[in-house]
């Protein structure tokens, strides 16, 4: 078969992961940082689903795993946003780099 090879999916996941990572570490806005993390998790999910089909022993487990991941990601996003709300109330900012009252 000469369908889309596994490595194509994996590379796509890798690229997305890197983009997510870059975004999470560079963007100033906390929302964007959080959403970048979501992107990273998504990349992992692509891997899981791809391996679920093209892996050594294909099985549905990968898809199940990815469902768990998605749920967790959602929960994390919710908590992250909630924390942002609390922070915003106190600090009136959403910029990551202004959170430096504790250092050294």
């Amino acid at each position, binding site marked *: 078969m000469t369908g889309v090879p596994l490595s194509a999916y994996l590379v796509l996941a890798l690229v997305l992961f890197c983009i997510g990572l870059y975004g999470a570490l560079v963007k100033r806005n906390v929302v964007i940082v959080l959403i970048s993390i979501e992107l990273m998790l998504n990349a992992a999910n692509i891997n899981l689903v791809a391996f679920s*089909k093209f892996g050594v022993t294909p099985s549905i487990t990968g898809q199940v795993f990815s469902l768990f991941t998605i749920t967790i990601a959602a929960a994390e996003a919710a908590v992250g946003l909630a924390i942002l709300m609390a922070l915003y109330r106190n600090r009136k900012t959403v910029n990551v780099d202004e959170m430096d009252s504790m250092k050294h």
Partner: protein
Amino acid sequence: MSLSGELIAFLGLALVAILGGVLLITLTKVVHMVIALVFTFLSIAGIYMLLSAEFVAVVQILIYSGAITIVMLFGIMLTKHQEREEPSKGRWGKFSLLLAVAGFAVAVYLGIYNLHIPVQPTTLHEENTKQIGIELFSKYVIPFEVMSVLLLVALVGAIVLAKKDDKDEEGDQL
């Protein structure tokens, strides 16, 4: 399933996904970034379709493109910040990060670019949702239940943290 069709679909979806990601990084308006990412999430759902994971794809669309994006947008709205994101990171920081990302990517790429695992016929696309359901409720009961606790925690946590404390309001949302 036509081979070329699958390939074209994949290329298209991948292009959109990556483009969304790139836009996320390059755009300056926060809302635009989120919107750009919606495309990525959607195309990832498409990828899942290609990988015979219909149920995951649907969940992806519902949760990511739907729920999470909306929540994020709400977040953006509620925290009325200046809409523009100014680049602030130092050049060196960015450069070294890029270097690190490149290193990471190359190292991983070396492992996967010509990964040949013999493709085995699968039945994943047949009654995908049922398969998942069976798997979930026969093998993964415990994590599933833990998951429910986790969601509860997230719920409570979100409320506790995000709630406006006016002292008169009870936590009657629950």
